[in-house]
């Protein structure tokens, strides 16, 4: 029986290779290459303070740019009786109101008029008053630090919660250069690099919880943040500001769907995503969608600090600069022959400012052999945060 098989063997191998390799082609249907340009409204109506709204646009999924923002729009908070509070434009598509106190017996909405004459409104929503955070606590376990929030509402009116947080941590760079390369010349440093910076990052994932299945409106130890042992944010001093929002049932549903929908990217084998818009609509053209949910509530917050000394001593917490060791060396006296040109070597390495000199290297005879050096990110902590000490920092 082997006779009929043998001549076909080459073909078989070929077939199989084809089968397994398949063919992959880019798939860019018109719907993706010319994406819809919808207004994105991000923020909430703060019933006891400043309302900040950020306007941007949807943009192509294949784009590597930052999202286009909507500038020069007119924004107003309105109640059903027609009372209006204007928002003033800030930077980067943000708009802020004055510190307001909204009437909890009225319903409010956001009214947007863009520069191009388009008009959008959010649905009228009731005002919810967010109960205070009972406490923010933390515990260390084998995996790292867990940060929990506790809250309750004795009146049972809140039920739907959302939390955001802002983290701040100290950064201490490991190099303090004594020289700098300015105007194609190496000189002693004039303004030293900061020795401490403060990193800052907002939460990026949706954190929500509801108490509708409980007999009391109590949130007990909801974990808002988990930091692994390997997080460099814990290396000196770490602070987290947890902000609590009380949501309506509808707003909760919006955030829940947003979380499920967009925290993984759709492939054939991923869950079915669903379209999600929110409660902002075009006043004139229903087909012109606007994305985002504008709720009205107050904001309560609480900050805690975690020092390195509070953590188990056995932990080997990285400082974030592990990959910066050891420093590189830029030699100006080699290679030979031909005789090197020190100015050209320095220029080729340090022009542009992405690579910075640290200290001179001297030979045994005291001759200048070159400089130690490293990338800017290893030296200037302002690439990772701000050198301005936050007002709340102790």
């Amino acid at each position: 029986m082997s006779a009929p098989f043998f001549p076909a063997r080459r073909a078989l191998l070929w077939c199989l290779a084809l089968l397994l390799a398949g063919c992959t082609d880019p798939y860019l249907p018109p719907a993706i290459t010319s994406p819809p340009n919808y207004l994105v409204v991000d923020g909430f109506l703060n019933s006891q303070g400043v309302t900040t709204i950020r306007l941007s646009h949807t943009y192509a999924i294949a784009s590597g740019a930052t999202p286009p923002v909507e500038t020069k729009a007119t924004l107003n908070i309105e109640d059903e009786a027609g009372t209006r509070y204007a928002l003033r434009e800030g930077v980067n598509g943000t708009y802020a109101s004055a510190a307001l106190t909204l009437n909890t017996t009225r319903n409010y909405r956001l009214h947007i008029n863009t520069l191009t004459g388009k008009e959008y409104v959010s649905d009228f929503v009731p005002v919810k008053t967010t109960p205070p955070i009972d406490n923010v606590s933390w515990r260390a376990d084998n995996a790292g630090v867990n940060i929990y929030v506790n809250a309750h509402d004795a009146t049972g009116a809140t039920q739907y919660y959302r939390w955001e947080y802002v983290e701040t941590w100290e950064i201490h760079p490991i190099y303090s250069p004594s020289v700098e390369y300015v105007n194609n010349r190496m000189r002693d440093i004039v303004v030293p690099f900061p020795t401490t910076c403060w990193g800052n990052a907002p939460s990026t994932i949706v954190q929500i919880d509801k108490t509708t299945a409980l007999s009391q409106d109590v949130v007990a130890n909801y974990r808002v943040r988990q930091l692994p042992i390997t997080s460099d944010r814990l290396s000196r001093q770490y602070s987290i500001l947890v902000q609590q929002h009380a949501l309506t049932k509808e707003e909760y549903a919006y955030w829940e769907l947003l979380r499920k929908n967009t925290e993984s990217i759709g492939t054939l084998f991923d869950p079915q995503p669903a379209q999600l818009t929110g409660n902002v609509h075009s006043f004139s053209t229903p087909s012109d969608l606007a994305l985002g949910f504008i709720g009205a509530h107050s904001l309560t917050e609480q900050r805690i600090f975690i020092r390195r000394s509070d953590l188990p001593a056995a932990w080997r917490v990285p400082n974030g600069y592990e990959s910066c060791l050891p420093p590189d060396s830029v030699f100006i006296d080699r290679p030979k022959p031909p005789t090197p040109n020190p100015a050209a070597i320095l220029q080729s390495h340090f022009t542009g400012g992405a690579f910075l000199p640290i200290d001179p290297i001297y030979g045994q005879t005291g001759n200048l052999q070159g400089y130690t050096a490293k990338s800017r990110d290893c030296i200037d902590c302002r690439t990772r945060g701000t050198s301005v000490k936050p007002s709340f920092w102790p």
Partner: protein
Amino acid sequence: MKQAYTAFCALFFMLLCLTSAGQQAEKTISGTFSHLPFEEFARQLEAQSSYRLYFDPAAVDSLFVTLQVQEQPVATVLYQALRNTAFRFAIDDEHRVFVSAGLAPNTALPNDFFQPRADGPAVAQADEPTATGPVGRSRYVSASEYKIYDIGAGSGSGRATLAGHIREQKSGEPVIGASIYSESPNIGATTDQFGYFSLTLPAGRYDLKIRGLGIKNTRRQVVLRGDGKLEIEVEEDIVTLKEVVIEAEKDKNVSGMQMGLEKLDIKTMRQVPTAFGETDILRVIMTLPGVKTVGEGSTGLNVRGGATDQNLILFNDATIYNPAHLFGFFSAFNPDILQGVELYKSAIPAKYGGRLSSVLDITTREGNKKKFGGAGGIGPLTSRLTLEGPLVKDKSSFIISGRASYSDWILKQLSDKNFSQSSAAFYDITAHISHEINEKNSIYATGYFSSDKFRLASDTTYHYTNQNASVKWRHNFTNQFYGVLTGTYSHYDYDVTSQQNEVTASQLKYAINQEGLKADFSYFPNSRHTVDFGVSSLLYNISPGSFTPLGTASLVKTDILPQEKALESALYVSDRFDITPRFSVSAGLRYSLFQALGPRSVYQYAPGESRSEATIIDTVKYGSNKVLATYHGPEYRLSARYSLNDRSSVKASYTRTRQYIHQLSNTASVSPTDVWKLSDANIRPQIGDQVSVGYYRNFKSNTIEASVETYYKKLYDFVDYKSGATLVLNHHIETDIINAEGRAYGVEFFVKKLTGKLNGWVGYTYSRSLVQVNAATTADMVNGGNYYPSNFDKPHDFTLVGNYRFSRRFSTSLNVAYSTGRPITLPLAKYYVGNSLRVFYSDRNEYRVPDYYRVDLALNIEGSHKVKKLAHSSWTVGVYNLTGRRNPYSIYFKSVNGQIKGYQLSIFGNPIPTVTYNFKF
């Protein structure tokens, strides 16, 4: 609960004890005959004895018999009767009596005797008395056509039932779905899966015609006096290139009761070109109107807008849970052992239940009862071998068939590391034994095992197996009443093993066991009624998932979902009633009962809230075999046919179905790791209603048949998924699934050309399949609670399967398939909300992938047609996807440096040539 089950089983045996007695022994002749016409005398003689008289009625019309005999042998009686006449008679050893004028005929026949002649057998002339050797079989068959069978011992008035089997004369295998009918009056019957038929006719003389799949048309002449048996042996139609197959449906298209039924036999299926040269039953099914699939390499069938889990796939009555090999590129059934397949799309008979959309009934051959034989094939990826033969000649037979892939071996030969580290292998074995204990009792046993194992350039190995067994005992109580007791066992399991990293080495396992017992009875009270009734019960045991560490170094935490258990039982009765020859109705009722059994812990959820872990308000524990949920309800099966004339008819049907087991598959195509989930306290059963109407017409003396069928279907509570559903190892799966409503409608045009050099079929379907998720809570709604296209909504679908026969040895097949692209949900844009990049998706299934289009071509070369040779062989040379169109198999999106990019993967992006060698001995 256990007691109830025991009692239930006992019921089966009670029903089977209803036996009847009665058979006659050889008799002598008694009676007084006074001036009786010879014809009538002969009839009475036959009635009293096992002898059959052959004569020319015209020659004896003036012959009258006056005689008085008392317990005399036949020969004596005849001698006395014909003593003073010009007639002589002769009796052969088969108790056949030949009466003729003049010389007594010699009962030993000349060799050329059975050449068809116009003047009939009764004028047999013994002009050349020669010694007779054994008569050739095929001649014996044609001889049977001329013989007049005298059936029964009745008075010759009233109605009588003729029953028996139609068997293939060479192999002794039953012929399934063959029809036997009389043309006037127009009464017929069809053989069942055992080749059994039962036909009730007014007493009298008939010319019964026999037509069937792959057999030569034949006829039997019978004189029916009372209930009796007729065993019919028919010749196989050897010319396989000629499309005999659909011929069986010749009359059925118009005159048959069934609508939405597609029958295919293996010979038809062999002609359809496939990617790897191997006949693929499911691939052929997909060329029929109303049957769709989401992806090229998927064997998941979507029948008339139904989901892939809504098809009951039966392999000799045992349920198959995964009918695919190698991700679905091969169907799990070895073509060599298959007899045929029946697909019920709309009017599902009452004896089937448990799935919403269709029943795919696959039957194996019985094996040659007369001699040993074998068949096999060698293809690019697989080879197969089948052996068959008698165990006891004419009584019992076996057939065993195996198939294995050698893709594993080929992969090892490839230099590419990705390939040599991959493996993909499968095999399957099927065995079937049939035994006829006696005239009234037969038993059948089938075993099936399939195994798949694959690893694709990764450390994860997938492995799955099907194990099925069924045992049937058939008992004929009387000619008009028989029953079949069937025990089935179905097992499906998979495991996913990851071993590369010993710290995370783990195994994920799933298994489903289904044991079933059922008793089906058929009763033919008269020619106008066919009554079927029965009971069935299925016991499910599911291990929904376990995740366990492998090896001592593994740190994986064991996670085992609790067992699921349930009992599904049903009772049914149906009657097919031919009100007039033109108008018949079939009414059936099936009542099914489902009980989910403990031990289980059942979560209860806050009413009016979207189910999630946060809304669990209570947990109720149920003990072993305690019923934790009961669902039951009637399933109506109604259909009617009205013949407008001989060539056209109108049919209508209404079918309700209920389904208690759901396949959880979050991916567009069926994957082997999908899980089956039983209904329970939180998951309701699915219910489906279908109304369909069709017009059927045959052209050119039944050689071309055409049909138009329309349907409207409503599905309730079928399973859909919330956004972000987790289906594997989910301890509270009900929080991730929702009950959806569906509706589907369509019109199917189908034209088949049955015979001739050019044959095949063309089908066009326009259909829609829509889903609505309008849950009480907004968060669970999909597309705002509006209807949206299902994953397999492909409105336009065109298929052409054509064969052209150049000669008896060369034929060519062409396959053209076109369909609208499958719906897809696209990420349209991205945006920032809540400090994070979000993706804006289109409405669910708002867009479509590019249209699907494929052309395949194959050339079949048969070996010489010498009847006597060692082995018959054939070659199939084909090209799959002749145009090389890159039909997308999957569309996926990947994030590359913050940019989301779309890709389409085509599995068969080039023409795929294949060569297959088949042999039969």
